[in-house]
């Protein structure tokens, strides 16, 4: 019997296998040993083996991107696309274009106009901002062309096209044809440019060469106690003016952070100044008092800022505070409460609330010693685009107690960061909330408020992987106009097929309060049909909402003639009902 051909079993495309063979042939024995260990280590260290960069062949041979305000650029782009009809060409507006695709393009053609005072068309502004930022990707094998529309009676004639051209070249792109700047009467120049491109574009099927990823450095393990230092790229409000809540989107460069959609990230925050000041005021202590934390000498203010938990309260902290201050009144009061009342205090009070209500003599050092160490906060990962970025969706906690402002520590600290700030983070895997293994399995995602975050990662991941399974998102929040988190992205996903269905419930728009569980009830029949097709259900958001949705599921099955309780527990047993509530 002949030895089986290893290539037949390798989960690698032929070309990669071939390259591997070539590499192996070139290595000396000791190099070969080292390499095998290195690769095995990589596989084991929890570093998710990077998903092969989508082969260039997944993108069209040429992409035409237009940026238009009044439609001229779009029309020219369409003319070009029409001319190349039947070939491997993609047409997309700059507003819809994903910058992450840029380095993967073979040939990319831009038709852009200039507006305002040398500005890009409105919907292309974010594209240009990113392209001009330092986050822009390097373009090595990308060939590009630019047609620029403008009006020479303006001072900044065709500014946008010129800047684009220069930037693409700076990033390493190779011009296909020279840029053409068109004046108001652009038709002839545009037609000539189209002719030229038709001649110069290479629309043969791309070869199937998959670029080998450069060897990864041995990745150190990232843990809660050995977090990774990420860099904030952007903090962006995503609730509109007049919203009753304040939710923001954070993008962090986190080189080497490996995660799967469904995982959370742990963030080591500092306590905001306001929180520290409130504790100092309630205890009557001075922030510059010198204290020891472990072996380290520092000031009380610094210790409270980055070493101690101030907004979460625990039974142990109350006990230690009672002991230090000999606060009998506090002991008597707290001890006399029902268990549930105590839980309410522990959940709702910050340390400053306690110290204000029951003042007592405490030294700076004693305070540091009685408080618990700072605890990191978890946030669902809202991205799956790779590119070593992690995105979060965070709702800012702020409220009043007795007329005084109170803020949540981590959410406010994060929300006030500027681009460039450092963040310590680590991954908290959540295996129970990962996507089904079979990419063809349909998924139903039910999320309210920031509960939508992991679903953004799900949809991105399934889109990127070309997963054939249908995705159904049921989203709820307060007001349609201001709180439809990631509305534009969901609309696009629906249009492009990355979402098969999208249902929404806004609780404060109409006279009656409508929540996601009402959608579940209304869509009972459709839901059953999806479950029959093997769908998995994911629920994410507040604890109460999770319960309400589960109850609605039970009722929906009952309503369609089944045994709700039984079906739901079966779903759980089959690991088809996943919850991530907080």
């Amino acid at each position: 019997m002949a030895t089986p051909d290893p290539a037949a079993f390798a989960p690698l495309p032929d070309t990669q296998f071939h390259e591997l063979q070539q590499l192996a042939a070139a290595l000396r024995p000791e190099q070969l040993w080292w390499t095998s260990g290195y690769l095995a280590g990589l596989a084991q260290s929890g570093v998710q083996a990077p998903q092969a960069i989508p082969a260039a062949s997944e993108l069209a041979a040429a992409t035409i991107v237009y940026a238009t305000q009044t439609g001229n650029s779009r029309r020219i782009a369409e003319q070009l696309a029409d001319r190349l009809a039947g070939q491997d060409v993609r047409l997309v507006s700059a507003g819809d274009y994903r910058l992450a695709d840029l380095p993967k393009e073979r040939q990319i053609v831009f038709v852009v106009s200039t507006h305002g005072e040398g500005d890009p068309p409105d919907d292309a502004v974010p594209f240009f901002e990113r392209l001009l930022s330092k986050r822009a990707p390097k373009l090595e094998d990308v060939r590009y062309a630019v047609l620029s529309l403008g009006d020479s009676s303006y001072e900044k004639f065709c500014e946008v096209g010129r800047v684009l051209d220069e930037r693409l070249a700076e990033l390493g792109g190779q011009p296909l044809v020279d840029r053409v700047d068109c004046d108001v009467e652009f038709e002839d120049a545009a037609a000539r440019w189209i002719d030229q491109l038709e001649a110069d574009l290479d629309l043969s099927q791309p070869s199937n060469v998959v670029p080998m990823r450069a060897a990864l450095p041995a990745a150190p393990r990232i843990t809660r106690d050995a977090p990774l230092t990420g860099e904030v790229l952007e903090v962006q409000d995503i609730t509109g003016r007049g919203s009753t809540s304040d939710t923001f989107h954070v993008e962090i460069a986190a080189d080497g952070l490996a995660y799967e959609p469904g995982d959370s990230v742990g963030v080591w925050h500092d306590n905001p100044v306001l929180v520290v000041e409130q504790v100092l005021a309630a205890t009557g202590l001075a922030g510059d008092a010198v204290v020891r934390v472990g072996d380290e000498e520092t000031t009380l203010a610094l210790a409270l800022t980055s070493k101690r938990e101030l907004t979460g309260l625990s039974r142990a902290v109350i006990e230690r505070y009672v002991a230090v201050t000999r606060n009998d009144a506090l002991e008597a009061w707290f001890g006399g409460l029902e268990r549930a009342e105590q839980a309410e205090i522990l959940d709702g009070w910050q340390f400053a609330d306690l110290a204000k209500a029951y003042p007592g003599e405490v030294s700076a050092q004693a305070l540091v010693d009685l408080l618990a160490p700072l605890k990191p906060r978890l946030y669902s990962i809202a991205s799956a685009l790779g590119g070593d970025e992690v995105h979060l969706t965070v709702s800012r906690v702020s409220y009043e107690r007795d007329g005084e402002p109170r803020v949540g520590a981590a959410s406010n600290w994060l929300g006030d960061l500027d681009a460039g700030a450092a963040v310590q983070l680590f991954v908290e895997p959540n295996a129970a909330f990962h996507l089904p293994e079979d990419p063809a399995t349909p998924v139903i995602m039910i999320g309210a408020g920031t509960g939508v975050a992991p679903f953004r990662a799900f949809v991105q991941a399934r889109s990127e992987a070309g997963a054939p399974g249908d995705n159904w998102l049921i989203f709820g929040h307060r007001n349609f106009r201001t709180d439809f988190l990631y509305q534009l992205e969901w609309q696009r996903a629906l249009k492009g097929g990355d979402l098969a269905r999208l249902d929404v419930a806004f609780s404060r728009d109409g006279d009656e309060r409508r929540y996601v569980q009402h959608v579940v009830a209304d869509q009972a029949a459709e839901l059953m049909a999806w479950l029959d097709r093997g769908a998995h259900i994911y629920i994410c958001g507040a604890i109460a909402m999770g319960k309400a949705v589960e109850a609605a599921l039970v009722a929906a099955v009952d309503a369609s003639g089944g045994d709700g309780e039984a079906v739901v527990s079966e779903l759980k047993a089959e690991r088809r009902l996943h919850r991530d509530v907080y």
Partner: protein
Amino acid sequence: MSTDVERIKQASRGLRGTLSESLVDPLTGAIRADDTTLSKFHGIYQQDDRDLRLERQRQKLEPAFQFMIRARVPGGICTTEQWLAMTRISREISDGTLRLTTRQAFQWHGVLKAGLKPLIQTIDSVLMDTLAACGDVNRNVMASPNPHRSKLHAKLHEVTLSLSQHLTPRTGAYHEIWLDGEKLARDEPEEEPIYGPAYLPRKFKISLAIPPDNDVDVFAQDLGFIGIVEDEELIGFNVTVGGGMGATHGDPQTYPRLADVIGFCRPEDVNHVAEHVVGVQRDFGNREVRKRARMKYTIDDRGLDWFVAELNSRLREPLAPARSFRFGRHTDRYGWVEGDDGLWHHTVYVQNGRLHADQLDALEGIATALPDVSWILTPNQNLAVANVPADGRAIVEAQLEAAGLMGSVTPLRAASIACVSMPTCGLGMAEAERYLPTLVDHLEAVFAEAGVPESDTVIRMTGCPNGCARPYVAEIGFVGKAPGRYNVHLGGDGRGQALNTLWAENRDEAEILDGLRPVIERWAAERENGERFGTWVRRTGIVEEAA
């Protein structure tokens, strides 16, 4: 583009499209793209708050979609009951303001999708509509208010109403969609006897004037009727065709054009003549190139003689020769006038036609105390309270005072108008309504320093070259080019009978003021017996006579 609009109209089943579905789509505040074309025929424009556009895009939210609704008010006259319903809409459904337009109509801004049906139902409840306030049909028919000539005006109004009625589309879509009326039994839309299934190639505008007042800018209209009065009787109208303002920067294929006078007809023939002018445009207007689809281009492409011959061949009898007429002004007269029936009328200046919530509240006082007055919207975006008995005048004055509408305004400001533009108009390139008052502050100073503080030079500003405030017949016209920058046109005649000429391009505020100051000073010093600024700049060759 044009083919798109034509396709949508054709396929719309009498302007229905998928509007009903669009209205209930919970995923967007917008309606479907094709429906945005159709909604215009129902008086509804989809817009978005441009002040928030970038902000919301960063927030990953769709644009702040909202709607502008326009209600037709033929001749600009409405009853107190109607007026109150209009103001109620401002308070309860729109952004709180009521906008009086340059075509004597009402507009509301900032209406959300869910507010559309209630709004239209409110309008319907007082026997008004928004149908055909926009779209490729005949728009709101304008008529000079002329309240002091009560008898003539009554006759003019009768002709106006009848004409407006005659040219209203017959489609039942409006009732079906907005008023929950009966659905079409078969899927077959009703006949449009005047328009046909594809309606007109482009919007169509009519106004009626009685000299000496040309407040309706009859020469800026596709079709105009100039009242001819003998012995205080309205004996008929001169007919004008081919006016229009709209143009596109840098495109010589588009331009403003003044209408030509082509003959005379009797009052009872007005509907007949109008129907056939519409018919000629319907059959010969350009449906390939939307930019060239207005009737002014149909006339220029085929010649005026051809047009008149084609029209006459369709009329019961050809038009009679035109009579002589003379216009004096195209701005409003303010203050009280007594009609020949003994009732009183008071016209006030409303800055750019925008009435705010507190002003509407104060005006309600008039409605409560004097329910029999009428409310007249003027073609210059102003308001007249009409048919006030002599003993009601004090109440009217008190409430107008409370509304801040009695303050003294320089003649320069009183003769100025601006279109809407930012933040609602999707076509605006520069501010207009929100900026003109500031520019007029500066110009007032320039005129005062030149020694002519009493000047009523007509100033008009638009945010783009479409010309919604008819800037090309102003003595000084500002046409938006980019944020903070305007093309400056000089040379109207104060009567709406002369086009002005482009004088300076793409100017910011400082350049505008520095450029105009010496010209205004020279005019103040050199003009001959009260010669108007616009006439003088042309006579002295500062700008060439428009072609």
